[in-house]
């Protein structure tokens, strides 16, 4: 589903965020991307969703070389990739429901199915009462869940979650993980960047660690 071959990313002037990184993630996999702060996790996810371009190397998503995709076709790639950003990127002056509905409107889903999906997601993430709250009035933990809800709304083939549990307590973290597991069961490939050892130490899923811009083997369990 996602393949990186010798990818390097250097932010100007000379910040080496990723160096010679290669990884293959199969369709239907759920992969935890770990590493200390500044290791390059966010950078890797941004490269995969096409928000940043690599300076070197090849990135293939769903069999397509991202560097060869015409700007015109980029929207269709993005529709198939749901990303929950570390900084959320919500629209502050729109309601929770409107924020979650956006990716579904973009692909012209029916109003009824959008409505149903929004309520379903709000319920699963314990945000029931926040349907009409403006995003700017939410706590960070709530914003984080809205960002995740928006990323998974369409149940896209590829879900990228950047620190989806960073601001959450244990119980809420479990809700988020349940939702992601559910998406994974439904067929989505998931890449999840996190510091939180508790969410990957007890799973059968793969965990990889980035250190100083390249992968090192991770001890699972």
């Amino acid at each position, binding site marked *: 589903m996602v393949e990186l071959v010798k990818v390097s990313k250097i932010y100007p002037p000379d910040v080496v965020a990723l160096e010679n990184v290669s990884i293959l993630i199969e369709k239907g996999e759920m992969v935890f991307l770990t590493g200390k702060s500044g290791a390059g996790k966010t950078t890797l996810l941004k490269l995969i969703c096409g928000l940043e371009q690599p300076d070197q190397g090849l990135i293939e998503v769903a069999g397509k070389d991202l560097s060869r995709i015409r700007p015109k076709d980029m929207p269709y790639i*993005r529709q198939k990739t749901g990303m929950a950003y570390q900084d959320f990127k919500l629209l502050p002056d729109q309601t929770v429901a409107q924020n979650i509905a*956006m990716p579904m409107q973009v692909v012209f889903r029916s109003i009824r199915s959008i409505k149903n999906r929004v309520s379903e997601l709000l319920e699963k993430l314990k945000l029931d009462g926040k349907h009409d709250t403006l995003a700017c009035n939410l706590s960070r933990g709530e914003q984080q869940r809205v960002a995740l809800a928006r990323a998974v709304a369409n149940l896209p083939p590829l879900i990228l979650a950047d620190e989806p549990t960073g601001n959450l307590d244990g119980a809420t973290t479990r809700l988020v993980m349940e939702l992601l597991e559910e998406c994974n069961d439904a067929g989505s490939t998931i890449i999840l960047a996190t510091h939180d050892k508790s969410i990957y130490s007890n799973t059968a899923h793969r965990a990889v660690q980035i250190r100083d811009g390249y992968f090192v083997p991770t001890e699972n369990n």
Partner: protein
Amino acid sequence: MTLLTVGLSVLIFSFFLLINTNIIKAGAKLGDDIRLILFLEKEPDPAMTALYRKKITDFTDVKEIRFISRDMAYKKLADQLGNDSDVLADMGSDFLPPSIEVYPNIDLKGLSEIKLFSEYLEKLSGVVKVQYGQEWIERFHYFTELLRVIIILSGGLLVLTTIFMVSYTIKLSVVARQAELKILRLIGATNSYISTPFLVEGFLQGLIGAAIGLTSLYFLFDWIKKNFNNPGLFNFFEFSYIPTSTTLLILAVSVILCTGGSIAAMRKYLRI
């Protein structure tokens, strides 16, 4: 604001167009009456008559050429005088010069030609004087020319203001929605998804703006008709509104301009 500007420029443009329509209509009516009278030195013999006829038709197409002999001129005058015709009694029937009445077959566009035509006729041998409504024809001619210039100018104004105002409005809303548009792109909104609302905005501005302009023109027209169509001044013809086809054309052009303006603005500010 944009609507008002578009509406106003449509109003200005179509107002002059309305005047033009009516002037042309009036002119066509008056044009039917245009005739040139050639006063001759002496009664032309048949050969001369044929020659005159040939010379005249050589220059331009005419509806009719009527030769008026001294006798006929006298009779005509007597007819016109009616009961007072006795005043002519002592004068003999030959004091009026023979003449040729020429009814040129030209519309108002050819007004400037009338002058040339009369100059040409004046040079024919045996012609003493050529008479036609010089004064008003020339004034009328200048007036229609002026009107044409005004229409072109106000048309240009219409084009400029609509395109400028619409693209300015679109620019403002693009800037205002910058953050939203960025996120829309991130979640995979296609160009057409992003640009459709702006296109619709431009389209509606053109449509509603032109509708406002044309509606105000209609009311203005109605008001003018009620207040100025009193007998004596304009009663020789009916005011008429600009034809429906022209109205529709203005509407269509306005819509096209506004949509075009928003497309141009999007090219520039959305890089679509």
